[in-house]
């Protein structure tokens, strides 16, 4: 009760001080000031991996942030920011690229200038790309591929949404990105219609004035758009290279994220509210020791991915935990008790409200809405939870579960036999976008229909279609995903 009241109070404060300005120059500026000792300014750009022109360009652009511009060199930016005691950071989401500067109050003029000079006049030189950007991109890709959870979420997006939201946050490990690609992507992305400026701990009028002054030269061209997302789903099995055994089981749905799915994720989450205790979620009691289940709720502007990420030391435990997770999902679809719903709603509401407390959370929650030009308050988000009924929850959940599930098992390399098979014919990508893995453990399962066998190509004299199951990993290319679909239908 107290928490609810506190969050409402918080929301009112935001509602009062959150200014959304669509000024004459077409820039969207919003700022909140809670009288924090530090300020932060984020340039949120519609330049996430969803809009990228070539796989990995968005990732490379993120790492190009704060390199040399017409105004100052890369080292100048870093050293000068250090003198001011500020922190510059860039983070990439599937929809947005966030360029953030955090600094002491009073230094806003310099840091807004740093951000806007990158947006308007970055040089994207070839040598900077080769000397600084490419190694970092490679490092991040390696780190991500070593983490089964990240890999599972990436693959889940690729299978769930294919193109658009399906494109990976990370560049392909063998890519052909050049500085020119990044430059042209940045040129198309860094337009006034694509940028929202969000400040915390800064006076809205000051920020608006600074931004108007410094971003006045940005091209005014319209916003980037991508085709509306649709959900596909599917299954992909991948080898893990170290790390725990991982399974992601999820469902997606196209359309604006609904409160029901946030509540579902909160209902399923076995995370305990108190340390060293077991959560009250239906999953928590059923999972074996040493296995973890995390609920994943990823809302985007026009789609949502909800799921459970199961991780554990050995395959048997993960299987048991996965079964419990699926059981919980199914029983949620057939309706939950009013009390459970109340609990889940409170949990989801707290998560939504407390996200706004942190700077990152504020930017991610409100940024997309500011970009869309809608004035938003936390109240609106929270009140959508209030009206939620058990029947609405049941309808939404069962509709979600009617879709094709996305299953991503990532196993340690324990398979007796794996083979890689590349799509023939016009498939000319050097990167292995499609790998069909034959898993001997699964032999005896459903094989490819005989009508498709003629189209297969054998590897080392063995026909992949002939014996046993097959798995397909679709990494990034929308063209390939489309092709596979037509191939298997």
């Amino acid at each position: 009760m107290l928490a609810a009241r506190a969050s409402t109070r918080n929301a009112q404060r935001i509602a009062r001080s959150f200014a959304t300005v669509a000024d004459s120059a077409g820039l969207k500026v919003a700022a909140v000031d809670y009288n924090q000792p530090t300020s932060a300014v984020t340039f949120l750009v519609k330049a996430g991996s969803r809009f990228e022109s070539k796989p990995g360009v968005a990732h490379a652009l993120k790492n190009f942030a704060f390199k040399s511009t017409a105004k100052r060199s890369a080292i100048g930016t870093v050293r000068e920011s250090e003198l001011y005691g500020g922190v510059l950071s860039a983070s990439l989401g599937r929809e947005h690229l966030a360029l953030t500067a955090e600094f002491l109050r009073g230094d806003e003029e310099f840091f807004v200038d740093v951000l806007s000079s990158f947006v308007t006049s970055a040089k994207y030189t070839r040598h900077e790309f080769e000397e600084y950007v490419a190694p970092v991109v490679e490092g991040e890709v390696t780190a991500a591929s070593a983490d089964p959870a990240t890999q599972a979420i990436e693959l889940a997006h690729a299978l769930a949404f294919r193109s658009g939201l399906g494109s990976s946050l990370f560049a392909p490990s063998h890519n052909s990105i050049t500085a020119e690609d990044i430059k042209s992507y940045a040129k198309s992305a860094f337009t006034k219609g694509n940028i929202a400026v969000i400040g915390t701990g800064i006076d809205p009028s000051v920020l608006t004035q600074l931004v108007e002054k410094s971003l006045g030269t940005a091209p005014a061209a319209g916003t980037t758009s991508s085709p509306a997302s649709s959900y596909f789903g599917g299954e992909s099995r991948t080898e893990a290279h170290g790390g725990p055994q991982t399974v992601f089981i999820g469902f997606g749905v196209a359309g604006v994220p609904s409160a029901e799915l946030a509540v579902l994720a909160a209902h399923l989450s076995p995370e305990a509210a108190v340390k060293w205790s077991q959560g009250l979620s239906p999953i928590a009691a059923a999972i074996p020791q040493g296995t973890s289940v995390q609920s994943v709720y990823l809302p985007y502007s026009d789609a949502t991915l909800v799921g459970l990420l199961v991780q554990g030391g050995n395959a048997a435990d993960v299987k048991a935990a996965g079964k419990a997770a699926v059981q919980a999902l199914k029983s949620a679809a057939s309706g939950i008790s009013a009390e459970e719903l109340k609990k889940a709603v409170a949990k989801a509401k707290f998560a939504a409200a407390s996200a706004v407390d942190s700077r990152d959370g504020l930017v991610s929650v409100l940024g997309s809405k500011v970009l869309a030009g809608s004035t938003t308050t936390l109240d609106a988000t929270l009140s959508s939870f209030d009206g939620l009924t058990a029947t609405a929850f049941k309808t939404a959940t069962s509709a979600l579960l009617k879709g094709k599930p996305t299953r991503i098992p990532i196993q340690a390399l324990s398979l007796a036999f794996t083979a890689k098979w590349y799509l023939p014919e016009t498939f000319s990508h050097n990167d292995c976008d499609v790998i069909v893995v034959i898993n001997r453990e699964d032999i005896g399962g459903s094989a490819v229909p005989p009508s498709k066998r003629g189209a297969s190509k054998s590897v080392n004299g063995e026909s992949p279609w002939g014996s046993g199951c097959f798995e397909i990993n679709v990494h990034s290319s929308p063209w390939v995903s489309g092709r596979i679909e037509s191939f298997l239908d």
Partner: protein
Amino acid sequence: MVGPLSISLAPYVKASRTLSTWIKPIANWYANASGYRKYGFKYDDLLVEERPDVQRALSRLTTREKYDRAYRLKRASQASVLHGPLPKEQWLKPEEDVRYLVPHVLDVVKEDAERLKWDTMKVTRK
């Protein structure tokens, strides 16, 4: 000589129209007479490369430029083994003698100077 490039009056000469009309023919004659073009070299191939800054500049050449440079060096070494210049049709034409490396060297020098400036800067509070 501190930097990777020797002291040059060329910018001063180029800036003055009279001077450049007088000196250019002599300079062209001198460049030809120095004979590196007979070995297929460009002038920038002769730049002292045993320095970290020039090495960094060399790493910034495009793949094509790197390949061509290596080819010219090998060809000239072979000519040296044979104790004579290349056949005349392989001599470098004056119009091909472009400064492909110097812009990168200047960039690197500028970056190093800037780094030194930031490293040795004294901060004063206003």
